[in-house]
Each structure stands twice: as structure tokens, then as C-alpha cells.
């Protein structure tokens, strides 16, 4: 089965089950809201696809010139354009593109290997997810933990320390932090690999391209150890940088909810601070944090390009940048449509989570 399909099954089936559960148990307003959001996704993607399609053709440059530089002669460019339908009227090209989107075919890349784009995404999307998910979990765990402690112990040494940490870590250029970790943990201490997803000398049968899962299903524990070791530095780098913003957001919301009447009432009833924090302050403080998680995950699908570059991680961000610079029209269009689908799904999930976390939210 295609790795892209497997990736969707691995992440999509739990999401689908959750959505169905919410849909069936939710109010009629919520059901109507979900159906409306799904219906709105189609025009949203079409508009975005159209804009990207037009922009790629407005900006100067072409795939052959970008790839061959001065060696891309006029004759070669003309033949290439003819072969790939780039000389066709814009309307014809657009019609072809929209048809590809609706058939989820996406066509072939224009340059380099000229492979089907779904194959290229099938290699890169799992790589990105394998890095972004643990990094987000690390960022969330560290940010919420430190943010809560800072919020509860406002103006203490913990608070000041956490705030300084959050600003410093968020302001730190991610590629510089990555290189610093590589130098310290990879070169000086020799604890972790410098780059890549797995030691290339270890054989591993790739089925899903999610190497942790591939290692587990083939019971290849040597590969699993190598995959986990290779994950440490990218996860640490990306997770630490992201934790800064989670920390600040959690802290300010914990402080704000701590001033609410219901918290004062809880205190008056003699409930201990730990319980108040967990059951009252934190739950309410998490609503904006969840919004941020949704946004961050969506951004990171294509936005972890610097982390991917430093750690030689063959993910979506690097792929998109390479293809934009190479003027690979079909690849860029397809990847952006793909992202749009992801963003739509994530933002729908976030909206649904609001209603679960906050009873005041009604659709």
C-alpha cells in the first residue's frame, strides 16, 4: 500500500473515529457546524489553488532555466514547455490542474526525477510528521509545565527564570541552536548522531516511511534504536524553541484564570492549590494553547525547513522550498493544496475541541 495512504490511515482513522463520535453525540448545532465547515473546505482549497496557480505563472523563471542555469538553451526550454503543456493557454493548464486535484492524482514533478508527486509526498510527509509530532509534544509538555508553575508562583524566581528562558529560547535562531546541539552532543560528547533519520548502514524495510512504526512492525530493534537516536536532536531543537511561546501563553492564562471568581470560590472552600490549578485554572487556560497547537502543527508541516536543513531531514519544508526555487509548478501547486487540506482538518479539530473543553462554546 502507498506510504501516503498508510500515513493517512495511521493518523486519519483515530481522527475519523473521534469526529464520528463527536458528530453522533454532539448537538444538532455542532453537527450542522461540522458539515458546513467540511463543505466550506472545497471552495477554500479551490481559491487557494487558483491563487498559487496564478502566482507561479506570474513570477519570472521556468523549471529548465532554474535547473540547468546557463546551459538551458532556448531550444531545450521550448521543447520542455511543449512536452509539459506549459505553452497551452492558461485556462487549459488550469483545467488540467483542477482535474488533477479532484482526482487526487497531482501529476508528476516537472524537474529532477519527474516522479509522481504523491510518491514524493509519501516519502516526505511521514518524515515531517515523525519530527513535528514529538517536537510539538515536547514543546507542549515543557511549555505548559513551566508556564503553569510560573503562573502559579508569579513574581517568584521560578517565574522570572521561566520568562527569561521563554524569551531567550524563542528568540534563538533555530538553525544556530541545532548546530550548537550538533557540536555539543554529536561532536564533543558523541552521544547522538549529527544528521539523518537512521544510520544508512542499518537495513530497514520501509512500508509506511514512519521509521518508528516500520522498525516496530518488522521487530527491527537495532533500527528502532537508531531512529530514536536520530530523533533526539531535531526534536530537542524544534521542541525547545517552540516551548517558549507555549510557556508564555500558558503562564499569562493561568494568571488570568487565577483571578477569576470561580477560582477564588474554590480557594474559599479550602481546596488545595494543586487541585485548583489542575481542575480550574489550567483547563480554562488551555483553550488558547489548543488554538496555538493547531496553528503550530499546521505551520510546521511546511515551516520546519531550517530544522530539516540542519539535520538533513528529508521533509516537506525542504521539499517545498526546493520546488519553489526550481519553479516546479506542479509540485508547488500540489503541495500547497495538500497543506490546505491539512490546515482545514486541523482547524476543524481545534474548533471541535473548544466545545469539549469549554461548555460555554456552542455551535
Amino acid at each position, binding site marked *: 500500500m502507498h506510504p501516503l495512504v498508510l500515513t493517512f490511515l495511521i493518523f486519519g482513522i483515530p481522527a475519523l473515529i473521534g469526529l464520528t463520535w463527536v458528530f453522533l453525540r454532539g448537538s444538532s448545532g455542532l453537527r450542522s457546524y461540522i458539515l458546513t465547515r467540511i463543505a466550506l473546505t472545497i471552495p477554500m482549497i479551490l481559491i487557494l489553488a487558483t491563487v498559487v496557480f496564478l502566482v507561479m505563472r506570474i*513570477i*519570472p*523563471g*521556468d*523549471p*529548465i*532555466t*532554474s*535547473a*540547468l*542555469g*546557463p*546551459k*538551458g*538553451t*532556448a*531550444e*531545450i526550454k521550448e*521543447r*520542455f514547455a511543449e*512536452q509539459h503543456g506549459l505553452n497551452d493557454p492558461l485556462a487549459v493548464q488550469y483545467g488540467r490542474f483542477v482535474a488533477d486535484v479532484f482526482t487526487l492524482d497531482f501529476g508528476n514533478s*516537472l*524537474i*529532477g*526525477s*519527474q*516522479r509522481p508527486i504523491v510518491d*514524493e509526498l509519501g*516519502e*516526505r510527509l511521514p518524515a515531517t510528521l515523525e519530527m513535528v509530532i514529538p517536537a510539538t509534544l515536547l514543546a507542549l509538555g515543557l511549555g505548559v509545565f513551566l508556564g503553569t508553575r510560573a503562573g502559579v508562583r508569579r513574581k517568584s524566581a521560578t517565574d522570572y527564570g521561566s520568562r527569561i528562558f521563554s524569551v531567550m529560547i524563542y528568540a534563538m*535562531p533555530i*538553525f*544556530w541552536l541545532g*548546530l*550548537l546541539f*550538533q*557540536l555539543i552532543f*554529536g*561532536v564533543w560528547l558523541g552521544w547522538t*548522531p*549529527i*544528521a*539523518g*533519520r537512521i544510520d*544508512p*548502514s542499518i537495513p530497514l524495510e*520501509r512500508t509506511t516511511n514512519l521509521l518508528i512504526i516500520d522498525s516496530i512492525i518488522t521487530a527491527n530493534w537495532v533500527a528502532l534504536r537508531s531512529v530514536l537516536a536520530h530523533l533526539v536532536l531535531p526534536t530537542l531543537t524544534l521542541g525547545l524553541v517552540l516551548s517558549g511561546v507555549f510557556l508564555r501563553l500558558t503562564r499569562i492564562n493561568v494568571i488570568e484564570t487565577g483571578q477569576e471568581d470561580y477560582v477564588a470560590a474554590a480557594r474559599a472552600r479550602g481546596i488545595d492549590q494543586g487541585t485548583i490549578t489542575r481542575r480550574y485554572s489550567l483547563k480554562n487556560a488551555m483553550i488558547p494553547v489548543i488554538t496555538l497547537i493547531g496553528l503550530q502543527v499546521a505551520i510546521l508541516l511546511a515551516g520546519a*525547513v*531550517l530544522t*530539516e*536543513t*540542519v*539535520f*538533513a531531514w*528529508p521533509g516537506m519544508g*525542504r521539499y517545498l*522550498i526546493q520546488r519553489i*526555487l*526550481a*519553479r516546479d509548478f506542479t509540485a508547488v501547486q500540489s503541495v500547497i493544496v495538500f497543506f490546505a487540506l491539512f490546515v482545514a482538518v486541523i482547524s476543524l479539530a481545534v474548533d471541535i475541541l473548544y466545545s469539549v473543553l469549554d461548555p460555554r462554546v456552542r455551535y
Partner: protein
Amino acid sequence: MTKRLLLVLFSFALVVAACTSSEDTTTTTAGVSDTTTTTEAPAATTTTAAPVAAVCPSETGGGTVVIGTTDAIASLDPADAYAVRDWEVLKNFGEPLLKWVPGSADQLQLGIAESMPVPSEDGLTWTVTLREGLLFGDGTPITAELVATQLTRLLTISETGPNQVGLTLGNPYVDSIEAVDDRTLQFNLPAPIAFFLQLLASASYIPANPATFPEDELNVFPTPPLTGTGPWIVTEIVTDESMTLEPNPNYHGDQPKIDRVIVRQFADPQSMALAVQSGEIDIAWRILGAELANELGEIDGLNSVVVPSGPIRYLIINHVLEPTNDPNVRKAIASVIDRDELSDVIFGGAVDPLFSQVPPGFLGATEAFEDLYGSPDLDAARAFLEASGYSEDNKLVLPVWYPPEHYGATTADGVLLVVQQLEATGMIEVTIHAQEWGTYVGALTSGEDYPVGVLGWFYDFPDPENYLQPFIENGGLGTMVTAKDGPITPGVSEELLTLLTASRIETDIDARAAILEDLQAVYADEVVTVPLWIEPEFIVYRDGICGDASLPNPQTLNIGGTMEFSYSVIGTDGS
């Protein structure tokens, strides 16, 4: 420790450059054998940037060697591939009829040919005999019929691929390829060419295994195992991550000294540098950059060496657009360039200044620009400008374009220094324009927009032809000394075309050298381009890795003027 931290800080600039840099290059390679011939290609000269490790004892070897690169694979079909990294891989799992002695760029050896090709009297046909008992890596027998069919792919189906390399290296030089008998091939040419042997040693003339590369269809991204005529088999490719090669048991020549090569892909030279420092890779090859390579050379256990070849950098001067359509303006520009200053300031003296578009060592290479314009001569430049009515009060406004990210920080710095040199006349006001590569290169080479711009070049085959022809014919990549449809631009010397044609067909080496010298003199007088410098390439490897001491340039692991890296010569000290 401070130095290492500085190394990390230096990465700020390099990481950004690494995301996009790629060289406008292509190369040709070769192999091993019985008969060797010396061509007019450049003799290798080597500079070492650091103390060089001793070569390994001949009896050692074995194990796995990991090579790091930032070069990506674009195409692995010989009838389509047109980039340095692609050709490197092709020449390790495939072998053409002729090949370069590893480490050299002037000694051709027999590849899968049994003897050197023989030309007909009129130079229009070349006959070559294949070795006996040749097999592809998968055991498929190789006949002349099969080789003719597979090489003909370059002439027939190359145009369906993204690179269409046949239009550059096939169709202009070869009409057809046919089998005379089981082991004899005949190449039919439309016109005699002086550099046919060099052409045959290029990766485009590797016969591909029909099991992977069908006669009538390109396969630019084949699935391993990739077997061919070369000493290696590509056993695994993980896109954007790694490639594994193991020895080909059916190879006709000596087996590699090591058991396995893994080539790992990096996106950023700084990460690759740290990986070679930590021992995660054994060799860092292309593209490190001078400063990073020099830093690594100072670390115990690492050897950093300059490879005796590299792409050239030069200014494209448009002969149609104002103000460079004025010969005096072109000559003024040529007169002010101080190449020694460029080498010293930008590269710490590590690069060779370039005084002709044909680099030193090639047949007939001269220092035409130094002979004609001095190095530099500001008074002469002012005189040229005054002759066209420019003065300190009426300055020449000269737009200069460059792509800041594509060639890395050093080339960008070089362009800025060139601007200073131009303005030192007091009569030129440069307006400098930076532009992203994808837009820049199309606009510059079309000849329609930019009067002056910087470009890089590395040859497709090692012959002066490939340093001159592209800048003269068919618009000359933006020089516009000829129109796109062929005729010479009015006001430009016809001799450019007549000498170029003469140099292409002259087979007597001395006579050809004389023609090439005359051609470079006319080229400099017309200021077709302004050559600047030869950009150095570096290889860094760990102690315990070694080249073949019996071949040229063992200190660069036998990478010579062709920039070809034959993995077969890599040895280890057994540690």
C-alpha cells in the same frame, strides 16, 4: 574550543547559502586499463590547504566508507543526466568506452573499449572494438549491437527528458552509431571534431543496461539495483537521504578495495562538516566552501585538500544592450579588473586568477586579458571611457547583476569587490542589482535585459571548445556576440566564428593550439566575457582514508581536473 564555536557562528551565512547553491556544472569521467593516451586536456596541478595524510599501504582496504555531499541526485539515466553528482554516480556503476585516469584530466584510458578508437581518413567515422566477454553487473552479455542501441538513446530519446543532454553532447557531434560486428562499433559524425575522444569519455556515452533503461524510454529515477559496466552496483537509494554501492562481481577490471560505499545527502555544508568531524562520515565532498574547509583542515585527524579543478567565474558582457554595446566601455571594464586582489581579498590567495576564458593547462590556453589590458590598468580604462565621452562629471552608469544566494557568499563578495574596482576609475557609477537565481539566469542568458552579470561554468568535457563555444554561438548565453539564430552581431569580429570553426575541426594538436591562441586574443579584444577566477573545490577526509599512490593526486583521493570521484580508488588503513 573558541575556534569550534566560531565555526558554528560562521554557519549563519553558510546555512542560507546551502539551501539553494548548486553549480552549473557537468563533467566527464573514465577508468582503468591497458592503453593510455594523453589528450590536450589540462594537466593537473594541486594545491594543498593542509598537511596531507600518508597514503595507505597497498595491501589494506575493506570495510564501509561513508561519503557526505550536499549535491542532490537529479537524473540517473545516461541519456538524460547533466550534473556533476549524477555523472559521478553514473561513472561508478557504469563505464564508457574510454575513461580518464583517476586523478588526471589529460590521460585517457580504455574503458570497455579494447583499443583506442580509430578515425577514418576524412574524420567522419570512428571505429572502436569492445573488450571480449563484457557483462553488465547483472550478468547480461554486452555486444556491439547492444551498446550501439543503448548509446543511440542519447540521439533519439534524450529530448524527452528534463535535461535533453543529447541536444548538447549527442546530436551536434554524432549522426548515428552502428554495430559492425559483435565487438565493433562505428560512430558516424556530421563533421570531424578534434575532441571526439574526450566526448566518448563522458558519462553520456555510458551504455546503460537495457534491463533498467529501455531502448525507447528514459528512466531518470530508476529503482535499484542499478547494474552497469562499472565497478560498482547501486544497491539502495533512499531519496534525499542516502545511496549504497557494492562491488560489481562482473566488472572487467580490478575490484574496488573497499566493500561498500554509502553516500549520505546533507542539506547544509555546516552539518556535513560537523558529521565528518564527529566521524559520522569519512569524507566530505562537495560543496564545503573555502572557509569551512580551511577550518576543518586545522582539526587533528582531518585532512582538507584543494582539488585541482573547479568552476570558473566570469562576467557576461552583453554586446547589444547599452552601454556595453560600446567597445570602449567593454574594454574599460576589462582593464580595471584586478584578479590578484580578488584572489587575495576574497579567498586569502587560495584561488587562481583567470586571465582567459580557457583556464590554464588546456590546449592553447593563454593569458589574453592580461596581455591586452594589464592587470589592472586604470589609466587605460579612463582613456577608453574618455574616448566614448565619459568623464568624472559625466559618469558611465553601469548596471551589474548577480544572484546573491546561488553561488554562495564568496562569489557575492567577489562581485562587490569588482564593483569597487570599476568605481575606482572615478568615471563609472555602478548600479548593483541582486536577484534570485530562477529569475536572474533566464533574464541574463536571454540577452534581453542585463548588460553585465556574473555567472559560473564547468565544462561538459575537458576541451577548450567547451569554454569558448557556449559564449560565442547562439547568443553566447547572453553575450549576444551572435544572434540566437546564428549570424555574428554587427560590429563584432567575424573572426570569432571562423576561428572557432577552425579550432573545432583541426586535428593536429600544434595547429589547433595556434588557432585557439588566436581565438582567445580576438575573444579578449571583443571582451566577449570577462574571466575572473577559478573557484576552488575542497575535499575533507578523516585519517585512515587514502587514495591510490600509483595514480595522480592521491592526496585528493585521486580527484583530478575532471572533478570525477572514482570510489574504486578509495582505500582504508584497516583501522
